[in-house]
């Protein structure tokens, strides 16, 4: 199309720009319904205990209190437990508490202060049980059993080589396995290396808390939720409260971020229950401290056994990954699948054998976190690859290039082909830090890494609807949640490009599950690559309906027509005739006008040959490189340069993509250097206070911090796009650890890379050198 508007690929102002820079945007936290009550909860002060008794008498009579909820108020016909494949988290604790933070009692009152004051009057008597605060403690032979009863859940179908079991052993809620190729491959290896890596745990630290406003009556539930998966939430609420799914309405507007945490049930069940009890709308909004107790990343221990040839060719990898899943299984089985599946990294192998176990502990429940198991896997895999290269006397760059999957090559049998040129990305980040420069300054080192994850989700279905209005304005209805990633902007740009319509004329309204098209959820970087395909199809079909209508009016063939900014263009060049849509539509349909509506649908094909039963929609690759300087006196590591890069395939909005890559990289940087949740052996979260828990500030970001957005053009989404937003968290920690070994010859295998750990490693090295 000559002279066509370019909308895709342009850094247009975001659709939500004006409302966000003026403070006019409204989040779920701002929802205020007439007669609304406020909920607060009493949380367990014990990490593991039986509840002997709860006395709420005084609280029930406190000023402003409208309802007090404990487990005995939950009707027995409700299925008041939730989780993904395994439903083990109770709406409120029943006979026992499993972590400091478990909800024991909830109160709805006229104000939050009154609810909080009343909670102080509740007394709970506990019988303490032994605490398992760590995975080691949970797996010990004499560890107490955290879930004495049989698990209530399902193992989903898997494809070739993959399998899973629920509760394979005490205190493990799920184990995922993947195997391909003969294990005899180890026999031919020149060397086999075994290394163990530890991964710390962060909390998501989204600034808008978990919050729900619920308005429920017997048989009817309406919630305003800060939730990234409105449709699964609808289904889960219907199941818990035993109402028809069509009687549950979930409203989702703008989220103040989530980074994975705002999925499934969080604040919703308590809010709904209190609303049912009071017949009033109830707002349940957590504090930042409570956010940290509600969902976290998975700490992990990753044991890798890797067989190689002496020229650096990778042969076989066996791995065991332990994920600290906390007190309830939440999405841990899904994270286990992904961590287990991604641990080989983007390399060729003759044999892979992986077990990933979800270990239950008396700590906060862990769940989805940006990177979704891929961050843990990349940390271990990319660290070990570097260690092996150095042991073999090879350059880590050469070792990666030798083994990496080439463009189009499947990751494992049955999988889709790699859709990025891995070397192209690696060369970019290497160039940016001068990786190949020969001069080496003392105590300076450079490291590289390739982060790897499958993107787009498994068997993920999305529908979309595009409506072209009388004058050519358009509405795109789809259920990708706007949580900061810019998905509503991206969708309007996709529609705008197809309709040749400025995005000012396109709206993307908030989600209401009664009207919005189905979407499995906003996760796995699937917005553009999955839902976007449904949107693009809907836009093309709606456009075709307009052109067919116009062809009928103009008595010509639709192929002679095009649509541009709400005008039907007949013919091309200087003689083209322009017919504004409005008069033509009203001429036929009358004054009220009309809407041309089309639906789109996308779901990745189901294929049993693919290990996860659905070939990966796209590969989300994140390349990283770092230059560090290590102070051997203090153990301080200064990251002089941090470079990360993702491949968006095609950036629908380059400014938005860059922002996502910056944000993910800085999150990874915090994890690498200092950010972590610290638990003691009693299961107490020591740095729960937001003033103490440390997240990256502007001053923490390395002065030479660069993100490079590649657009290699091989994505499956609209205009060659892939998903984005997670890639650049993946390679950061390992690139830094690799740079440290390059600088001072010590290997840090545990995150975060604190000065103490560096000093310890230096001391170990000095000792070893003394001995030899």
């Amino acid at each position, binding site marked *: 199309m000559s002279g066509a508007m370019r909308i895709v690929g342009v850094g247009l102002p975001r659709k*939500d720009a004006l409302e966000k*820079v003026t403070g006019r945007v409204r989040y779920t936290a701002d929802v205020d319904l007439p007669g609304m009550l406020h909920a607060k909860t009493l949380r367990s002060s014990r990490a593991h205990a039986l509840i002997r008794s709860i006395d709420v008498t005084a609280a029930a009579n406190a000023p402003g209190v409208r309802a007090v909820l404990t487990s005995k108020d939950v009707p027995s016909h409700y299925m008041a437990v939730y989780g993904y494949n395994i439903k083990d988290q109770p709406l409120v604790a029943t006979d026992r508490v499993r972590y400091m933070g478990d909800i024991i009692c909830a109160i709805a009152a006229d104000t939050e202060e009154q609810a909080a004051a009343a909670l102080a009057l509740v007394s709970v008597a506990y019988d303490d049980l032994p605490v398992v605060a760590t995975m080691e403690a949970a797996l010990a032979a004499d560890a107490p059993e955290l879930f004495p009863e049989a698990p209530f859940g399902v193992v989903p179908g898997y494809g070739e080589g993959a399998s899973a079991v629920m509760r394979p052993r005490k205190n493990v809620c799920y184990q995922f396995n993947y195997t391909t190729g003969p294990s005899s491959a180890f026999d031919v290896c020149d060397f086999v290396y075994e290394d163990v890596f530890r991964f710390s745990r962060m909390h998501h630290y989204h*600034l808008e*808390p978990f919050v729900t406003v619920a308005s429920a009556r017997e048989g009817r539930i309406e919630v305003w939720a800060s939730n990234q998966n409105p449709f699964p939430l609808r289904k889960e609420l219907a199941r818990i409260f035993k109402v028809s799914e069509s009687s549950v309405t979930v409203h989702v507007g703008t989220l103040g971020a989530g980074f994975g945490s705002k999925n499934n049930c969080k604040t919703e069940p308590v809010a709904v229950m209190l609303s049912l009890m009071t017949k009033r709308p109830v707002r349940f909004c957590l504090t930042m401290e409570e956010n940290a107790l509600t969902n976290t990343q998975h700490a992990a221990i990753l044991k890798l056994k890797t067989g190689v040839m002496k020229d650096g060719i990778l042969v076989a990898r066996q791995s065991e990954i332990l994920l600290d899943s906390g007190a309830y299984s939440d999405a841990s089985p899904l994270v286990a699948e992904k961590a287990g599946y991604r641990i080989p990294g983007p390399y060729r192998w003759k044999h892979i054998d992986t077990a990933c176990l979800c270990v239950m502990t008396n700590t906060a429940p862990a769940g989805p976190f940006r990177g979704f198991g891929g961050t843990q896997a990349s940390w271990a895999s990319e660290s070990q690859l570097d260690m092996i290269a150095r042991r073999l006397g090879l350059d880590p760059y050469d070792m990666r290039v030798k083994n990496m999957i080439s463009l189009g090559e499947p990751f494992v049998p049955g999988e889709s082909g790699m859709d990025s040129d891995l070397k192209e990305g690696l060369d970019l980040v290497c160039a940016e830090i001068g990786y190949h420069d020969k001069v080496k300054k003392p105590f300076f080192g450079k490291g590289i890494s390739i982060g790897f994850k499958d993107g787009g989700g498994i068997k993920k279905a999305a529908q979309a609807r595009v409506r072209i209005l009388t004058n050519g304005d358009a509405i795109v209805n789809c259920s990708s949640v706007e949580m900061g990633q810019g998905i509503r902007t991206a969708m309007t740009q996709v529609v705008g490009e197809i309709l040749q319509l400025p995005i000012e004329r396109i709206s993307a309204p908030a989600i209401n599950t009664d009207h919005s098209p189905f979407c499995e959820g906003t996760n796995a970087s699937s917005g553009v690559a999955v839902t976007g395909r449904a949107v693009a199809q809907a836009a093309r079909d709606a456009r075709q309906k307009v052109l067919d209508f116009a062809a009928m009016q103009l008595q010509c063939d639709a192929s002679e027509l095009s649509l541009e900014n709400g005008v039907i263009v007949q013919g091309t060049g200087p003689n083209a005739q322009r017919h504004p849509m409005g008069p033509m539509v009203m001429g036929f349909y009358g004054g009220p006008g009309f809407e041309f509506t089309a639906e789109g649908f996308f779901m990745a094909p189901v294929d049993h040959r693919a290990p996860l039963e659905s070939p990966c929609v796209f590969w989300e690759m994140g390349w990283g490189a770092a230059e560090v300087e290590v102070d051997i006196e203090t153990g301080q590591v200064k990251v002089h340069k941090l470079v990360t890069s993702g491949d968006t395939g095609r950036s629908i909005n380059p400014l938005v993509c860059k922002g996502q890559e*910056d944000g993910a990289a800085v999150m990874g940087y915090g994890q690498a250097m200092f950010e972590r949740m610290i638990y003691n052996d009693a299961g107490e979260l020591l740095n729960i206070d937001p003033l103490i828990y440390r997240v990256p500030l502007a001053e923490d970001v390395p002065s030479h911090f660069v993100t490079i957005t590649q657009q290699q053009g091989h994505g499956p989404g609209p205009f060659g796009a892939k998903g984005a937003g997670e890639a650049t968290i993946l390679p950061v920690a390992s690139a830094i650890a690799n740079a440290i070994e390059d600088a001072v010859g010590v290997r840090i295998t545990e995150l975060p890379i604190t000065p103490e750990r560096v000093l310890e490693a230096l001391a170990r090295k000095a000792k070893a050198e003394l001995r030899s």
Partner: protein
Amino acid sequence: MIPMEIDFILNGRAVTGKVSGNLLLADYLREHLDLKGAKIGCSRGACGSCTVLVNNIPIAACSYFAFQLDGKSVLTIEGLERDTTLHDLQQAFIEHAAFQCGYCTSGMILVLKAMLDHEPNPSRDTVVEWISSNICRCTGYAQIIAAAEAIIAMRANTGPTEAVS
């Protein structure tokens, strides 16, 4: 608690309010005055999403009593626009996509406004130092810094556009 009467300037207009001694400024703004642009992230003075300017100094409204406003002037994000014309910082935030979820945005813009009023021609380090009072979990800060630098460069050429102070 006996309410006290306070006189202060709210977004350029003189107002009188009745507040109880334990009312937090964040709640006063959000619940009583319906100015919801200041967000509550942590309620602990750590994140800065509740930032407003009191006498042109950024303060955390979650950790400041409403009565402390007496005799002072407060500027919230709602007061930054002049007759529907965006402040140049707001414009720069739009052009540089200096926000994602937007929860930190009101605070970040106000911090930068205070910075520019105090130091009209700051270095990049000064920008970093000022915004390090606030947390943005989404952006990694690069685009916020880029927006600030664009304003600084623009103002160096054209002088400041009028801003409410």
